[in-house]
């Protein structure tokens, strides 16, 4: 047992290191100067030396410890250009409505699937699940056509509206609702409360963990949107930070990445127990 435990710890440690290493590299390299980054990561590969023997020009020299610690990356990024902050808010303007919309749409839908009885309920739900399993790229073309028809192509609505209808949110909340005692609902209905009142006053306070989990997972997913902005948005002034990061100067990329992942990290840290509880509870039935 001790061996198993030890092996488990070793494996977990290795995995943890593997997963945390990129984050650590980003954090530490964000404290390097632009010159140091160019020296470490600038590759001088040419057609002439590409097939030659291995040399330093072919590889980046990744280091966790900067030669000199400096905040010039952050300063240049945040004060040298106003574009980064603008793109940051573009990401917020995309992610926030989608997350809010998902919660607003998924909760009633899950309530309906769980609490109501109507014909073909399970079939429709099954379709929802199937849609959830379909890759995003499959739905891009139909979404584009719909956006063209609705003349919202080129606007943020072309991304927000399809994002709001998330089958995963319905699935997550419904799974959580399965654990809710029906007595509260029936008692409220006997007292004359309608479905909406029951949903808002009785049911919603009981599945906060599910909502929190949905919020975090949805935020992280939509904070990192890349394909939809590239396809649906034409004005580069509206592009989010996830797209802008590919165009940013290489000497600022680490600071940009740090700043970029900070909101997601903070939200996760704040609501991680809710997420665990939400995912846990959604699996119990």
């Amino acid at each position: 047992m001790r061996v198993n435990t030890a092996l488990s710890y070793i494996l977990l440690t290795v995995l943890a290191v593997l997963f945390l290493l990129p984050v650590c590299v980003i954090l530490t390299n964000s404290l390097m100067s632009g010159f140091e980054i160019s020296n470490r990561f600038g590759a001088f590969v040419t057609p002439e030396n590409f097939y030659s023997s291995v040399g330093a020009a072919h590889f980046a020299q990744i280091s966790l410890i900067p030669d000199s610690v400096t905040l010039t990356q952050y300063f240049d990024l945040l004060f040298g250009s106003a574009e980064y902050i603008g793109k940051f808010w573009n990401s917020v303007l995309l992610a926030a409505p989608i997350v809010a919309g998902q919660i607003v749409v998924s909760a009633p839908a899950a309530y309906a699937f769980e609490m109501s009885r109507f014909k073909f309920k399970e079939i429709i739900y099954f379709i929802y699940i199937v849609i959830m399993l379909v890759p995003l790229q499959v739905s891009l073309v139909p979404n584009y056509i719909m956006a063209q028809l609705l003349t919202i192509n080129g606007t943020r609505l072309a991304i927000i509206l399809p994002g709001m209808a998330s089958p995963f949110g319905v699935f997550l909340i419904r799974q959580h609702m399965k654990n809710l005692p029906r007595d509260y609902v029936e008692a409220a209905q006997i007292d004359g409360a309608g479905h909406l009142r029951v949903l808002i006053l009785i049911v919603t306070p009981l599945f906060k963990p599910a909502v929190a989990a949905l919020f975090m997972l949805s935020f992280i997913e939509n904070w990192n949107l890349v394909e939809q902005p590239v396809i649906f948005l034409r004005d580069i002034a509206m592009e989010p930070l996830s797209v802008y990061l590919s165009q940013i100067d290489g000497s600022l990329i680490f600071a940009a990445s740090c700043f970029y992942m900070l909101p997601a990290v903070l939200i996760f840290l704040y609501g991680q127990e809710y997420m665990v509880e939400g995912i846990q509870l959604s699996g119990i039935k």
Partner: protein
Amino acid sequence: MDASKKIIVKISGIFLGVLLFLTFFSNTVATMNLPGVSLEFPKDGVIKQTAVAQTTVEYAESIPVYTGQEGILTMRVREGDAVRQGDPLFTVTADLKELRERSNAETNKLDRAMVNIRRDESEMVFLQNKLDTLVPDRQQVTDVDPPDIAAIDFEYAQIEADIKNAEADYAALYALYEAGAGPLSDAGEAARELESLRLALARKEEEKERLLDKYEGDLAKAIADDVNANDDKQRAFLEELQNTRRELENFRFDMELRHIDVREARQALEILNAQIATGGIENIYAQSGGIIRDIPAGTESGTAVGKAQLLARLRVVNEAGRQTYRMEAEFPERAGFVQAGMPARIKINGYRGSQPGTVERIINRGGKRISVITMNTELSLAGGESAEAAVEKLSRAYDRVLPNSAFHSDDYGLYVHYVERKQNGILGYTYAVMRQPVYILEQNDAEAAFGAYNDIDYPIIVNSDRPVEAGDRVKIVGGEDF
């Protein structure tokens, strides 16, 4: 809320605060460090080219005033006096007694010349008769006919008579001019007529000689061919013929000289008689309105002057009281647009304002392009004043004109920088520099008209506090806005 969550909330709050601060102030801070530029849209305009050169003013029109006779000078004007046409300028008083003596001497000289002429004419008649007598003798020897020179002689005499009349006309006209009563052009016409008559006379003489020479040549040939001719007798005959002709020619030549003497004597006599008729007083009048200048030093009343002595220069002033000056200016090489006929402005040192002038012509002197400018002005200048001449040329209208500071050049050619406005969402506008190749159509020191291969719909950077390149972000500090 447990402690860890509180910390996370605090960190989130700080993050949000920083984010808001950066949102509202990072652009401001970033903008403060951006290069500041002034913008202008290309405008309609013309390119004014100005060429300036230093020059010296010279007087353009002046008439020299000469004496017509010797005598004692009386000055009626001084240096700088303004006169009108016909005003008396100077008076030369000759000694009347001396004039009469000279007149008598010239008369005697004329008489002697006439006597000599008559004597020579008699001799010439004798020789001509002898020559004519020789001709029939020659005809006995050969069949060669003598030329008919009677007609030529008649024409010759006619031309001589015409010459006499022309000489008289010329003398009279010249006397009128010297008295100020007639123009010089008439006397010149008479002189030309006289000259042409003398040429005609000479040609007639040549024609006669040619005929006689031909005749002698034919005669000699005929005699030589004649088998029955007596060689010695023929030779002697020919020799006598030639001697007679030669002698006749000498007389004719002497006659020419005597005729010249006669003409000169007659002219001098006429002048003297004219002076005697006026009591020996010659009044010199102004031929045109103007200002008296350049009186030689030592010229004053009571001094003795000779004939044809320069007394002064009359600088012509037209009826409006304006004088014409001339100056030469060498404009810079880049001012090749200066052409004859273009107006000019002349700023004379020491005088206010500027005077209008005209580029009269362009001359090439020693490989240099010199512009000759005339100026007609009321100013009374002494000549020699330094001045600055300026010539302007306006180009045709162009629809794209910008200050020269807008244009830059590098190895890839001439270009301008224009600014594109981009919006970065909630943080307002940003301005980026773009490059546009252009070419210059016309340019002066301040601005240029240009053309571009593409339309430029954005304002162009005409000034910046720092060098900028395509792609740079800038802030607008002056000039025109979008």
